[in-house]
């Protein structure tokens, strides 16, 4: 089952594939360099660290001895003034930083040293070891950390070593748990199983496969923990259980100021307070920056978020809705010339761009297609060709950012959907145009019952009362072949099988008798026997209800089963369009023919090599300007790569985007050689695989 792994719905996963061979730390460093906030935090921490390390060099005073008159205001001699005993505040602040940093660095270093092996062991091994360790961590987690820390520090006595132990007791369980969780996640990855299947010893896998994978989260966590340790040490010292006077720490300086001069000289309390807050803030900010740089967190769409729930349209000069004025491209010109009263939905010159973080990338270009009333239009192509983007764009469901529609029109009854507001669009969605999706498990809200979904689908569009909506919902469930419909109403999605869930999705889509159903790979996640049931169901519903369907899939077999007309997409463009029988009997585009030949069929002799299409689909960032298939095409000439190839329209309405093809020809020229299920061309064998071509000349 092909999953659209590389479909450009997220801008980010793509550009890493292009980035040259640097390791993850190199990439993370580059990304961190573009994060001014994290850089500022890092700079501040370097300064604090240097000041702490070089304390005796940068300040002439002693932290414990009076250096001037008490409570002197800031001056050239005493940058931050003096405290109640005449000690230089700046000096004490610097030395206090030294104490804080020393303690937190020791705590975090020890915590990492102890928790990494423990966490790896618990996470990788699982079983009893894991169970016991996790119960101990649970127990620690239910203690109020501060009390535990105070108790340990109080009982052991205020020594720096004991402060470290007290902090360690508090931070260790959490860190072990995090590392264990990461290790467990990595262990579930196939590459760890692959190493085990090779026969690699466990210790080697833990050291070389699991450890590097947990390294980045550990680095992030350690950075944040440094801040936590600073906070905790300050708290202990503030309560008199950490660093003891006269040795300064930010916590006990604050306590001293609070006890003595809070109301007369509040500044003396402010300095250590600010020092603590800034340092912790810096560690947290750096931690967040690292998390982003390592790509661990989903920090939301990059760039300013637009309105939720509708794709942004930025068309330079969009003509007023009903008018059919200047056509956006050569293909559209051809298509627009044959309007038809049976046309339900017309997409003209559609262009979709994704913001990749390094400027916009065009993933869909000059796309035209027409869906007539009551017909099934198949939209087929490999992952990354833009077929799902097309399906989502029609209902304006692509998230913005990163997606954006930058050209074209989508006409439903002559109304351009690209001109509608969210409020107007809502009256189209689920009523005129319904959708079902690839993954029926995640497409139903796990927190709501089946009945809720079906009732909601009706009440979004009509003010029906709950009882009526419930009755209709049960009818719908019955319609899509769900037995014991009334009982299913109260069930939750996870209580249903995959096939049942997809039936529920279909029922919800049909609730308002839509004129068009967009089915985006609706059977890809299902088993073949269940797929057969769902296809059968969709076909009969489509015929009974007379609705049109846009059926998106990568599977030519499914297309052969259900489509009336087929549009083939490649690399963000339509490359061919024809009636279903015509397409399979006489594929005109070399890509379509390549696909058909690459599939083993009943007629392929076993053991025979399959015909192949060399190379791989280009990424949207690297779409060639000429024919996008030229580099993989056996017939390509120098002309093909020179300039964009227009979509040519034949007399029968078939379209093909190939310089060598004559769209109206039957058995003429390269592109029109009949295929008709024959594995090989009669006579010459232009598509015979040649071993050397297997290497990627494309890349």
């Amino acid at each position: 089952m092909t999953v659209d792994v590389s479909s450009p719905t997220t801008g980010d996963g793509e550009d890493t594939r292009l980035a040259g061979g640097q390791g993850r730390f190199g990439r993370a460093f580059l990304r961190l360099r573009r994060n001014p906030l994290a850089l500022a935090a890092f700079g501040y921490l370097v300064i604090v660290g240097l000041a702490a390390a070089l304390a005796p060099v940068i300040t002439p005073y002693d932290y414990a001895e009076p250096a001037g008159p008490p409570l002197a205001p800031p001056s050239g001699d005493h940058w931050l003034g003096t405290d109640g005993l005449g000690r230089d505040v700046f000096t004490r602040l610097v030395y206090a930083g030294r104490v804080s940093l020393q303690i937190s660095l020791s705590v975090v270093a020890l915590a990492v040293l102890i928790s990494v092996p423990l966490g790896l062991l618990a996470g990788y091994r699982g079983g009893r070891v894991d169970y016991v360790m996790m119960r101990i961590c649970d127990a620690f987690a239910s203690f109020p950390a501060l009390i535990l820390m105070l108790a340990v520090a109080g009982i052991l006595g205020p020594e720096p070593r004991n402060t470290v132990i007290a902090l360690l007791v508090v931070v260790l369980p959490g860190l072990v748990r995090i590392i264990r969780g990461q290790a467990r996640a990595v262990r579930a990855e196939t590459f760890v199983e692959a190493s085990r299947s090779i026969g690699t010893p466990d210790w080697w896998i833990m050291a070389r496969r699991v450890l590097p994978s947990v390294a980045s989260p550990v680095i992030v966590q350690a950075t944040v923990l440094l801040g936590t340790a600073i906070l905790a040490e300050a708290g202990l010292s503030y309560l008199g259980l950490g660093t003891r006077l006269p040795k300064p720490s930010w916590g006990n300086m604050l306590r001293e100021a609070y006890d003595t001069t809070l109301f007369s000289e509040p500044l003396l309390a402010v300095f250590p307070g600010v020092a603590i807050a800034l340092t912790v803030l810096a560690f947290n900010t750096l931690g967040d920056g690292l998390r982003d740089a390592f790509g661990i967190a989903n920090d939301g769409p990059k760039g300013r978020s637009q309105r939720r729930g509708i794709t942004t349209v930025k068309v330079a000069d969009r003509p007023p809705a009903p008018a059919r004025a200047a056509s956006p491209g050569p293909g559209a010109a051809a298509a627009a010339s044959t309007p038809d009263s049976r046309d339900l939905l017309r997409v003209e010159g559609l262009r979709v761009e994704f913001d990749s973080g390094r400027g916009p990338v065009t993933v869909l270009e000059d796309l035209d297609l027409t869906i007539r009333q009551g017909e099934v239009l198949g939209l087929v192509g490999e992952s990354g060709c833009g077929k799902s983007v097309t399906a989502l764009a029609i209902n304006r469901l692509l998230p913005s950012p990163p997606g954006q529609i930058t050209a074209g029109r989508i006409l439903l009854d002559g109304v351009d959907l690209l001109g509608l507001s969210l409020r107007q669009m809502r009256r189209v969605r689920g009523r005129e145009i319904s959708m079902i999706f690839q993954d029926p498990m995640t497409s139903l809200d796990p927190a709501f019952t089946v009945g809720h979904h079906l009732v909601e689908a009706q009440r979004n569009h009509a003010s029906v009362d709950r009882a009526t909506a419930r009755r209709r919902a049960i009818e719908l469930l019955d319609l899509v072949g769900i037995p014991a419909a009334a009982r299913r109403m109260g069930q939750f999605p996870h209580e249903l099988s995959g096939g049942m869930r997809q039936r529920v999705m279909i029922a919800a889509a049909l609730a308002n008798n839509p004129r068009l159903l967009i089915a985006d790979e609706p059977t890809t996640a299902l088993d073949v026997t269940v797929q057969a049931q769902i296809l059968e169901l969709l076909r009969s519903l489509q015929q009974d209800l007379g609705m049109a369907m846009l059926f998106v899939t990568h599977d030519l077999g499914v297309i052969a089963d259900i489509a009336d007309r087929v549009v083939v997409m490649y690399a963000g463009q339509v490359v061919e369009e024809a009636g279903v029988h015509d397409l399979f009997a006489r594929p005109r585009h070399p890509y379509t023919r390549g696909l058909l030949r690459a599939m083993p069929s009943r007629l392929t002799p076993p053991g025979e090599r399959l015909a192949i299409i060399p190379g791989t689909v280009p990424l949207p960032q690297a779409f060639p300007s000429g024919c996008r298939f030229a580099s993989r095409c056996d017939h390509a000439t120098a002309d093909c790569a020179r300039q964009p190839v227009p979509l040519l329209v034949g007399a029968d309405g078939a379209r093909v985007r190939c310089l060598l093809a004559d769209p109206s020809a039957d058995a003429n020229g390269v592109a029109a050689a009949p295929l008709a299920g024959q594995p090989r061309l009669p006579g010459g064998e232009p598509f015979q695989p040649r071993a050397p071509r297997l290497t990627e000349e494309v890349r």
Partner: protein
Amino acid sequence: MNPVRTTIGTAQPATGTDTAAATATPAAAAPAARLVNVVKEYRLRRSSLFGRREVLQAVGGVSLTIARGETLGLVGESGSGKSTVARLLMRLVEPTAGTIEICGTDVTNLRGRALRQVRRNAQMVFQDPYSSLDPLSPLKESIGEPLRIHRRMGRRARADRVGELLAQVNLRQQYGDRYPNELSGGQLQRAATARALAAGPELLVLDEPVSALDVSTQAQVINLLQDLQEELGVAYLFIAHDLSVVRHISHQIAVMYLGRIVEIGPADQVYERPAHPYTAALLSAVPVPDPVRQRSQTKIPLRGDIPSPTQPPAGCRFHTRCPFAMEICREQDPPPYRTPAGVTTYCHLHEHGPRLAGAPVTALRPAEAPAHVGGKAAGKGDDAA
């Protein structure tokens, strides 16, 4: 018709001199792998404090043999236990019962070092090419891992061998320095194949190796696998849900349903003359990329979904979905039936009811099927649970 088929049971020269080292080679003629009555059960967590501890039987007594240099295709839907069979064979999961042999060595109870030694004879390629290679290591490091573990090769020797392996799977040499996220799915799957071949195995376990790939890249990998088998004489356990791909590459096909093999035999027989209704249904459910044939083909409709493996139906496990189910199917587990063409199937239809006696199930007309099929209910679902 295929020259390789004549070599069943005979010794293969294998890849080189290294096989002798790992095992005592009890018999060079031993099959590449053999499973005898292998069972795998998982004990599930109690549903409540006083609830019954449920047992999930992922594999319920599977026996099969993979001859040297041959391909056994293993077909089934999700929950059929086909991936568990692969993992059992690789000893990635512990069998509950049964015997597992690899190249004649009983590996059922091997552990630790001895097990790792044997593993070099059987290597695996996984379904998802994007996650089966360590994203943090360059390809050459991943491909070289078996060489390091099993051959203790030095850096220089390893680099040379990795170069050869890359060439063998038609990847350019520079790719050794690339990271997995810089390659396409098809390229990654070839790299994973190179890694599996590195230790010079007798058997490759291929768990849905092309399912995650696009059609155009799928063909590249399938051709490569066939080339490699011819060149190296390595045997395959090829797992897939796509019957046409399995038929194309396999010598033998085994069809699994709910943890059991329902039919096993020569590929063309199973594919052309299915002796088990499930095989026939599966075959008719796979859409063919030919509108004329796809729309005219008689389909054998199955009701509902696969039942839960925690509560497999009594009798024949398929009876809840079988369009031809009879009374006996609900009560008795069908015994193996060997057809004249050499196919072993587990179905009462051959000795009871219509008494097919080895004839293909497709000979039965829908009319002969019990009444509960047909009409608009053809696509009607029915949860067996």
